C-alpha cells in the first residue's frame, strides 16, 4: 500500500498571533512551527499501517524552504520520503491542486490529510483534493482500518459517529481518534539522524489559479475582567446570566 500524508506547517498552539504589513500578513517573528496536529494523528496512523501491514509512507507539503524542518520531523517520525512543492500556500484550492498533482504522479492508494489546519482553519483541502482526484473521501475520520482495497472507517458526526466503508483510492480528513495523543511519537536520535539522509524532493509547482485571497486580519477586541460571584450568592449569577448576558 502506498500512503501519502499531507503535512501543513503551522504555528504551535502557544504561539502569539500577530500580524504585520498593515495587518495583511501573519507575523512569523519568534513563532515556532510544527506539524499541524490533525495531520500528525494521520501520520502516526500511517506509521501503524507501515509497521503492521506493510506500507510505504510519503509526506508532502506545499510551501517554501522554511517548511523543510517540519518535513524533516515527519521523516524522523518514520516517513520514507518527503516532497515539497516549492510555492507558498495561497489558498485551499491552490494547495489542493498542487497536492492533486503529487498524488496522481505517485499513484497512492491512501491519502491522509488533517481535517483542518490550526492556522487558517479552512477545512477544505482534503475534500477538494478528493474531488479533484475523483477519489472517495471520508472527513472527520476517527478510526481507519484497511483490508485489501477496502477501508472501514468511523466518522465523527454531530452528536455521535457513523461507520462507513469505501474502496481505495481514498482521501481521509483525519483528526484525533485515528490514533490517540498518547500514541504520538517524539522522534528519537536515531530517527533524527536517519531523517537527514532520507530523500526530500523539491518539485516545481503547477501553474494554478486561486479562488480566494486573505486581504486582512484583525484581532478580537480585548476581553474585560471576569466578574466573580460569591458561591453563597448564586442568585446573582442567574441574574447576571439572565439580565446582563441575556444568555438564559
Amino acid at each position, binding site marked *: 500500500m502506498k500512503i501519502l500524508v499531507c503535512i501543513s506547517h503551522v504555528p504551535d*498552539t*502557544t504561539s502569539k*498571533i500577530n500580524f504585520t504589513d498593515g495587518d495583511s500578513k501573519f507575523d512569523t517573528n519568534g513563532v515556532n512551527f510544527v506539524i499541524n*496536529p490533525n495531520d500528525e494523528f494521520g501520520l502516526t496512523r500511517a506509521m501503524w499501517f507501515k509497521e503492521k501491514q506493510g506500507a510505504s509512507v510519503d509526506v508532502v507539503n506545499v510551501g517554501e524552504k522554511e517548511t523543510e524542518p517540519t518535513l524533516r520531523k515527519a521523516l524522523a517520525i518514520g516517513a520514507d520520503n518527503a516532497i515539497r512543492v516549492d510555492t507558498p500556500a495561497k489558498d*485551499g*484550492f491552490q494547495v*489542493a491542486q498542487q497536492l492533486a498533482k503529487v498524488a496522481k504522479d505517485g499513484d497512492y492508494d491512501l491519502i491522509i490529510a488533517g481535517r483542518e489546519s*490550526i492556522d*487558517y*482553519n*479552512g*477545512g*477544505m483541502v*482534503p*475534500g*477538494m483534493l478528493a*474531488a479533484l482526484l475523483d477519489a*472517495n*473521501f*471520508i*472527513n*472527520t475520520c*476517527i478510526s481507519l482500518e484497511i483490508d485489501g482495497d477496502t477501508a472501514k472507517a468511523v*466518522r*465523527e*458526526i*454531530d*452528536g455521535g*459517529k*457513523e*461507520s*462507513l*466503508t*469505501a474502496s481505495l483510492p481514498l482521501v481521509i*480528513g483525519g*483528526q*484525533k481518534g485515528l490514533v*490517540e*495523543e*498518547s500514541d504520538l511519537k517524539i522522534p528519537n536520535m536515531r530517527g533524527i539522524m536517519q531523517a537527514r539522509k532520507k530523500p526530500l524532493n523539491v518539485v516545481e509547482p503547477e501553474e494554478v489559479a486561486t*479562488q*480566494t*485571497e*486573505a*486581504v486582512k*486580519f*484583525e484581532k*478580537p477586541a480585548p*476581553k*474585560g475582567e471576569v466578574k*466573580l460571584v460569591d*458561591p453563597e450568592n*448564586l442568585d446573582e*449569577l*442567574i441574574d447576571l*446570566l*439572565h439580565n446582563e*448576558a441575556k*444568555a*438564559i
Partner: protein
Amino acid sequence: MSVLIYTETEDGKFKKAAFEVASYAKEVAEKMGGEVTAVSFNANNASELGKYGVSKVLNIQNDKLGKFNAEAYADAVSQVAQKEDSKVVVLSQSANSKYLAPLLAVHLDAGYASNVVDTPESTDPFTVKRSAFTNKAFNFTKITTEVKIVGLSQNAFGLKENETEATTEDFSPELKDGDFSVNVESVDKAKDKVTIADAEIVVSGGRGLKGPENWGMIEEMADILGAATACSKPVSDMGWRPHSEHVGQTGKPVASNLYIAVGISGAIQHLAGINAAKTKVVINNDPEAPFFKAADYGVVGDAFEIVPKLNEKLKEFKAKNA
C-alpha cells in the same frame, strides 16, 4: 440572481442551522438584489423556510438520500445551483456541511470561505469576515470566483424572521453510481440529545469532577437548560466521556451563546476551541485556573457543592420564566 442555501433536516424536520442560514442568506440576497432559494432533502414541510425569507424551496424526495452522503448530496446540490444559476451558496458549519462544502466547491468551480462570522463586508468584491487561528484572530477573505460558497459559523448570525411566501417544488437530481461509493453502514447517535453543534447552551465538565460517576449533576444542569453536554480533552482521553463530547482545538468547536465550564482549568487548547462562545462561565476551586482570564463570569469554589445548589436555583428560575 439567487442565493442558494443547503438546509439540513433530521427525520424530515429542519434543524435550527437551516433557519439560521436562511436568515443570513436573506440579508445577503437583499444586499445583492436577489432572492433566496433553498435545497432540502426529504423535508416534511418545505414551505416552513418561508418564515425566514426563503422564496423557493427545491425539495429532493429520494429514499436513497435518506441518510447523508457527502458525494451524492454534493452532486445533487450542485445540480440545483446550476439550474437556479445561484451565485452564492450558503451552508452551516455542521459536521455534514463541512464534509459537503469542499466537494461542492470543486463541482461548482467556486471559492469557499469557511467559519464565516458576519454578513459580507462588501458584495463586490465579495469579502467576508471569518474566524481563523482557532478563534485567536479574524481574517477577511475575498472570494474571486463567479460562484461563492459561504460556510456560516453556528450562532454567528442568529435567526431573523422575514415572512415570505415560499413556493415549493420537487427536484430529482441525476445521480451516478459513483455517488454512493462511500457506504454508510451504521449511525451511532444519541437520540433526543441536543448536539454541541446545535446547542444554544453547552455545559462542560473537566478533570475536576474526579470521575465519570459524577457526571449526573452536569447532565442535570444540561437537562434544566436544554443544553448539550461536553467535556475537556483529558476527560475524553481517560474514557470518562465519549470522544464526540470533547471540545477544544483538536475536538469540536463551540460557538454557543453560553458555555458553562465545571472543573476545567482552561488549557490554551481548550480555550481556543470554546472562544467563539458568547458568554463563558467557569466554576472551579482554583482561583488561579487560567479559565478565569477567559471567562465572563466565575465562581471560585467546590463544584460538588456549587453545581447542585445552582441546579436547584436554575430549576426555580426556569419554573418562573417558563
